């Protein structure tokens, strides 16, 4: 990372034209910090909502047999849990970070298109309403899995239309947001900040934004075909009319796999920011980190069919997708080794953000390895649609993306609020989350290997013990997140005053402005050496 100095300080930040207040401050906001805050709160609300659904899933799976919900409801819970966590919780959280941090890190006064930024956020609300309201329409919410494979999604009730429309809206929001982020990064960097001096978080978001604008339209295309199949008599996916349901899987995963990296690359950016701070060493191998991120992004477009090994493909195709998938572990490994090398012989301290980051490096690597196991074609045929896959993607999405988000929140919270969070409670939150997470998901490797299928509300007796352990872990994991909410609220309301630099080892433009960051920053661009 570059050494940066701000020559100008916006001490007149709370300036003459004042600062809008009340509800309209938020509704009409074009301020990147306000919009970032709204993104983060939105995603946290969705996180709790979809998390509550997961509690329902685990309550049902606590014991074999049907106790709390009927299979139809169970399927709705798993489907909506996935859709909302991905599109409502993780993606908006990262956009929230981008809004807050990208302009601060590159020394820009705001995003390139502040009004579009406002629109990107407010599009999330109707989408969330559509998704949540779909639970209450006749037939209930979508129940065919978050991937919405036909023929179930072609046959489903009006909730499918509502969800598809919601995803269309979220897609527009993501695309507009990404164009905004790319333009900001390319055109609004402070003088002297060359591309290779940008903080790693900005790099990962630049690449993520490119993935979004290339992949989201493909999802929009697939969903549009689904809608025309449902209502306008086309037969893209209808076997009777010469279509093919497998076509949907190809189009969907052509979007879906880049989507996986959309949800993890910004997390890598957060780790690459936090680890050097608390190791008190610059990031090891900055350039290789940039190239590795770009390599992951490019490879993410040529591995999609590893999600479809069992749905029919010639052997040559299966082998291609197996090897290209395994290839991704090379740039990912570069990143993991760089983080380890950053920590090597560093003067490490273990504040909450660092604890989260170290846990993510460790647990994400476990998820990466189980992904490598799933990539092996003959093994995947056994593991397809079992709890092993559930364990794998929770190790990369929860202990990868979500825990990186939590670490990032603790890391930047003092800059956002002006107060230090309660370190003791933060550590409690960390340990509870990490232990409960592993209690929940580690046993799923075993139940999956033993053949327990996912998305089924009942299971055979032999899985009873492991499922009970998983459920107990899940309840603890769910409750621990309320502690997170409490710590954040407590920090907003008060606490030890944060200094500008906040962390002893923190470097970069965002640490040169006051804490809390004033409403307007860098109206006169800083000089980067």
């Amino acid at each position, binding site marked *: 990372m570059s050494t940066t100095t701000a020559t100008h300080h916006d001490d007149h930040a709370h300036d003459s034209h004042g600062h809008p207040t009340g509800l309209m401050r938020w509704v009409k906001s074009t301020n990147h910090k306000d919009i970032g805050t709204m993104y983060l709160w939105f995603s946290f609300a969705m996180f709790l909502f979809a998390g509550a659904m997961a509690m329902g899933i685990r309550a049902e799976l606590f014991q074999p047999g049907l106790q709390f919900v009927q299979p139809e409801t169970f399927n709705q819970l798993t489907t909506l849990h996935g859709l909302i966590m991905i599109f409502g919780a993780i993606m908006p959280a990262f956009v929230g970070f981008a809004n807050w941090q990208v302009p601060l890190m590159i020394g820009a006064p705001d995003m390139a298109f502040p009004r579009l930024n406002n629109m990107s956020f407010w599009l999330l609300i109707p989408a969330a309403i559509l998704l949540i309201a779909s639970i209450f329409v006749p037939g209930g919410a979508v129940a065919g899995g978050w991937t919405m494979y036909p023929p179930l999604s072609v046959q489903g009730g009006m909730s499918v239309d509502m969800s598809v429309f919601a995803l269309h809206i979220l897609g527009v929001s993501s695309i507009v947001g990404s164009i905004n982020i790319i333009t900001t990064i390319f*055109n609004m960097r402070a003088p002297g900040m060359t591309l290779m001096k940008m903080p790693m978080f900005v790099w990962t978001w630049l690449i993520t934004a490119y993935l979004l*604008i*290339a992949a989201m*339209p493909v999802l929009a*295309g697939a969903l549009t075909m689904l809608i025309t199949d449902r209502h306008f008599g086309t037969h893209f996916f209808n076997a*009777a*009319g010469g279509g*093919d349901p497998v076509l949907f899987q190809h189009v969907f995963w052509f979007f879906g796999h880049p989507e996986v990296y959309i949800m993890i690359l910004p997390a890598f950016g957060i780790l690459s920011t936090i680890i050097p701070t608390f190791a008190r060493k610059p990031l090891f191998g900055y350039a290789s980190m940039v190239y590795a991120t770009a390599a992951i992004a490019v490879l993410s477009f040529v591995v999609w069919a590893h999600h479809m090994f069992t749905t029919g493909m010639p052997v040559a195709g299966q082998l291609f997708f197996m090897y290209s998938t395994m290839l991704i572990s090379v740039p990912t490994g570069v990143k993991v080794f760089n983080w380890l090398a950053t920590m090597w012989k560093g003067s490490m301290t273990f504040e909450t953000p660092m604890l989260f980051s170290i846990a993510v490096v460790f647990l994400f690597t476990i998820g990466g390895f189980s992904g490598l196991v799933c990539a092996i074609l003959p093994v995947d045929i056994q593991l397809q649609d079992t709890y092993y896959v559930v364990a794998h993607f929770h190790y990369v999405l929860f202990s990868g993306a979500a825990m990186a988000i939590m670490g990032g929140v603790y890391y930047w919270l003092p800059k956002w609020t002006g107060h230090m969070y309660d370190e003791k409670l933060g550590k409690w939150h960390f340990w509870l989350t990490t232990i409960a997470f592993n209690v929940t998901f580690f046993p799923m490797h075993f139940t999956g290997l033993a053949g327990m299928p996912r998305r089924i509300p009942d299971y055979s007796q032999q899985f009873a013990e492991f499922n009970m352990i998983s459920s107990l872990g899940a309840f603890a994991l769910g409750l621990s997140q309320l502690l997170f909410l409490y710590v954040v609220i407590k920090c907003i309301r008060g606490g030890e005053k944060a200094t500008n630099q906040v962390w002893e080892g923190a470097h970069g433009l965002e640490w040169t402005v006051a804490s809390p960051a004033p409403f307007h920053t860098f109206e006169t661009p800083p000089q980067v050496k």
Partner: protein
Amino acid sequence: MNLDDKKSVLSATNNRLAWKLSLIVLAGLLFAFAIAPLYDLLCKELGLNGRADSTMTASDKHMKIDKTRWVTVIFTGNTMPGLAWSFSPAQTSLRVHPGEITLTSYMAKNNGADSELGVAVPSVTPELAALYFKKIECFCFKQQTLKSGESKKMPVLFYVKPDLPADVNTVTLNYAFYNGVTSLGQAALTQAGETPIKVN
């Protein structure tokens, strides 16, 4: 250059970049829709996904029957929702020599109260065998009408091409019978059973 000029230059550059980026978005959207015809073309050309050419094939007089080899052909059939028929193969499997022209049949009965129009969509598994499975005569080439309570024997005249890869010993032929009046079936009629579905 004063601050306002700088700002308007920046906003023009921003707009230009945003429009360029929207081209990527447009390309992504077009690509999504291009996948559908590309996929059909690829599957047909390469015989993947059970989507072989299953139109009427004339028998080839010069074709040699490979008496040294046996292939088991399994027949399956099912009706799709919206068609009150029962439908099943007369023989569930046959052993044939590659190149040998064989006649078999399916039985269909209308259990509903009304006369109904049906159309059968064939598919072949394993996918690789689809290119080598040829039908000379098949009830799936045209729509079928059954009156209430009527049953009908539906013949299939087929052969397996002698150049079927040596590791394929068993070929499964499946028919899915769709209601020919619903919009789905209408579309199937226009395809006249030319595009079989894939069955795992």
